[in-house]
């Protein structure tokens, strides 16, 4: 499939050099390599610079409320088997206002793929501190430096029992494409944290910053099925930053667990007007 078939009439409006371009191209590439046609994928976007991407990708798109992309995605997936569901969110939306949904999505394990555009800053609202900003990070809202420890997204996902936890970098396109493909193919809730430098507002976590620090787990003898090892590996986020799959195991999905209801039977025009006669007998 031509990756341009995923384009809309609208050209991206991100700042020149923004890390979102890399994610955008990687996602289109992954979809095209997986031969998922535009009508076979639903992408739920958060509000943010990441979410502005909703206007640049042709698919069934849903650009919802800030922090609420996961619940929308779950609603879609639980009734519609017929589509791949991908969530694209900023770090603010996913780990700040929406972190509750993230915790519950991890333990719920609905078959969807979540990609965080982790620029460690609030981009669209012009550069405030985000929960992923490093301790001490200075911004308009924390002029003397943020006092909180930063959220560690991969550690949080692991402790919430996510079965597929991984990390990518928008500066490493091919690797990111592979990661997305693995995530999309994973049966269950797959989480990909993508470092996405914000060239306009984040002058700490730049392309160079990551280029210097990242390394690929695939190039080490790291095993991806050892939970405790993953918990330890996930803590590496200083001088060395691991890219790749930190943890991947098979877990029963939510849908598999609820086989007693065929989740996708309710979309046809015919099933209106169920017969509830039997139900009424209880109330006689």
């Amino acid at each position, binding site marked *: 499939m031509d990756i341009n078939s995923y384009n809309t*009439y609208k050209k991206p409006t991100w700042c020149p050099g923004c890390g979102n371009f890399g994610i955008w191209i990687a996602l289109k590439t992954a979809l095209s390599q997986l031969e998922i046609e535009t009508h076979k994928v639903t992408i739920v976007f958060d509000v943010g610079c990441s979410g502005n991407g909703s206007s640049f990708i042709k698919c069934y798109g*849903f*650009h*919802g409320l800030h922090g609420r992309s996961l619940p929308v995605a779950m609603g*879609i997936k639980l*009734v519609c088997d017929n589509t791949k569901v991908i969530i694209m969110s900023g770090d603010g939306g996913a780990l700040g206002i929406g972190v509750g949904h993230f915790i519950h999505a991890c333990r719920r394990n609905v078959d969807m793929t979540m990609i965080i555009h982790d620029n460690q800053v609030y981009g669209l609202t012009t550069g405030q501190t985000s929960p992923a900003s490093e301790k001490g990070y200075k911004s308009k809202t924390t002029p003397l430096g943020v006092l909180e420890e930063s959220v560690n997204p991969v550690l949080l996902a692991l402790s919430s029992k996510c079965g597929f936890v991984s990390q990518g970098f928008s500066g490493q396109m091919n690797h990111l494409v592979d990661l997305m493909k693995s995530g999309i193919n994973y049966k269950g809730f797959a989480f990909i944290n993508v470092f996405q430098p914000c060239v306009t507002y984040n002058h700490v976590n730049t392309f160079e910053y990551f280029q210097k620090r990242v390394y690929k787990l695939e190039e080490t003898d790291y095993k991806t099925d050892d939970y405790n090892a993953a918990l330890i590996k996930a803590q590496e986020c200083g001088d060395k930053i691991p890219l790749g799959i930190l943890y991947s195991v098979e877990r029963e999905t939510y849908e598999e667990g609820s086989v007693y209801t065929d989740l996708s039977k*309710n*979309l046809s025009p015919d099933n209106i007007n169920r017969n509830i006669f039997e139900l009424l007998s209880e109330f006689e």
Partner: protein
Amino acid sequence: MYDIDWKIAGVGGMGAMGVGLIFSKFMMRTGYWVVDYNEYNSIIKGGHNTFQVRASLEVNYCVSSKVDLLIALDEYSLIYSNSLKNDSSVILCDWELIKDKTVVDRSRVVDVPFSVINKSEGGDEIMKNIIALGASLALIGADIDICVDILNEQFGKKGDLVVEKNIKLLKAGYNYILGKYRNYMVLFTRKHGMYKTIEPSDKRYLITGNEAIALSSVEEGLGFFAAYPMTPASSILHYLASISSDYNFVVKQTEDEIAAINSAIGASFAGARSMTSTSGGGFALMTEGLGLAAITETPIVVCVVSRPGPSTGMPTWTDQGDLRFVMHSSQGEFLRVVLTPSDPEECFRLTKVAFYLSEKYQIPVIILTDKYIAEGHWSCRIDLNITTASRNSLISQVALDRIETYERYSDTPSGITPRSLPGMKKGEYLANSDEHDNYGINSEDASNRLVQLNKRYTKKLARLISELPTNKIYGNKDSKNAVITFGSLKNQVLESMKTNTNFKYMNLRCVCPFPTSEVNSFLDGIDNLFVIENNYIGQLAGLIREYVGRAPNYQLLKDDGRPIQYEEILDFMKKNGY
């Protein structure tokens, strides 16, 4: 015409509610019209519960402030003895347990030694309520066979032993009266009228407003339901969860109300008929989602079951204080419908209307009820298969194949644009919370904005208005006195109209869009407008002033958590000379 007002009261955990419902059911099965009302506290055990039933041969609408028969399971419950109706009314209690014997007139008391009987019959501590039920049935002269049937059904799942024990206790209570108080029974029935079993003329069901909404949604093809528990809305969730696997739809208890409405919107976007339910506090968290449904033109039905606020307020009580809140919540301006059913039967009907309108116009529809009708039972007829229509405003694959490019938000004469569903070829589009163009893509252009506002609001409204449920006029249509209420208050007004017919009456079952022209012609030429509401500031009166330009001459308001009683309405009318 025979009727009876029956009440049982006791500490939470004594099972007043449980046997109350059995009594309601018994009366309905034996041919009576029944309505019941319960009160309980926001704690799990302890506190005080009451369950009151009114059963009669003619249609009835609500319970009375007076009772013929009071069952006091504990001493505290004797405070209700001041609500005995007349000198044929009695109190059924275990006189031994009453420490202060001066609080009630001993001659009113039918003493049934619950504890002694319970012990001698080998009952569990919590089964005294069944003895009381049996005794009360004897007292009114009822036959208990049908009640035995009900116990069989009710406790069947818990095994034969439980069933047998209950039946034994029921009979023990029953026989105790026949043995020891036959004269009392004779007296009671002579004064009160003779109970007899009637063959009901039609099929009736005893259901609550919450059950009616749930049942109706299932019949309407509910595909996805998500909610977070909240009194007094929770029983919708419980009921739907209990049948979802048999009827093949998704029920999800989400992590909060935000997730509930957002996931319901997601499921609706994907094509499922979707609903959520909550009370005011949970609705506060849903307000942002409401606007999301509106701007993306995704259908959604939201049930709001009111309880007194502000804030946590009085979780297990009733009021009508959320009217303006549900009408105006969420930033910006958009079309929504607010339906206000008055009883379980109307809950059943209007839930269908909600799904129909919501899907056809691709708008949020709110069903606003209150604790009073949500958890009280009414015996009522349920018309099956009055389903409004099949799916609406969807585009077919065939139609998609035929067009060049699909424009999900293109302007149409009706304002409604058929929507595609994920998986349909050539139907891709963006459902966008930002203002958008025909494709759903962000647009900040002024003229596009006006086109979209006009499409979403003005055009749809023009067509919608003719499909809204209309409001019946009751009473003396030529009267110069007009009473208006909304929602559950209809019950008490209609009950009061059995006595006072000095007015005409309209109950609004749709408050938004406001039925301006209907109300206008209803009020045309009247001398006095009476507005009655179960809230503190008179929100409906404000709406009438806003839309019809008419201020009430008389207002009856109450917001102490209790429904306004029909006797209060009679007094109110009388006090004002009508």
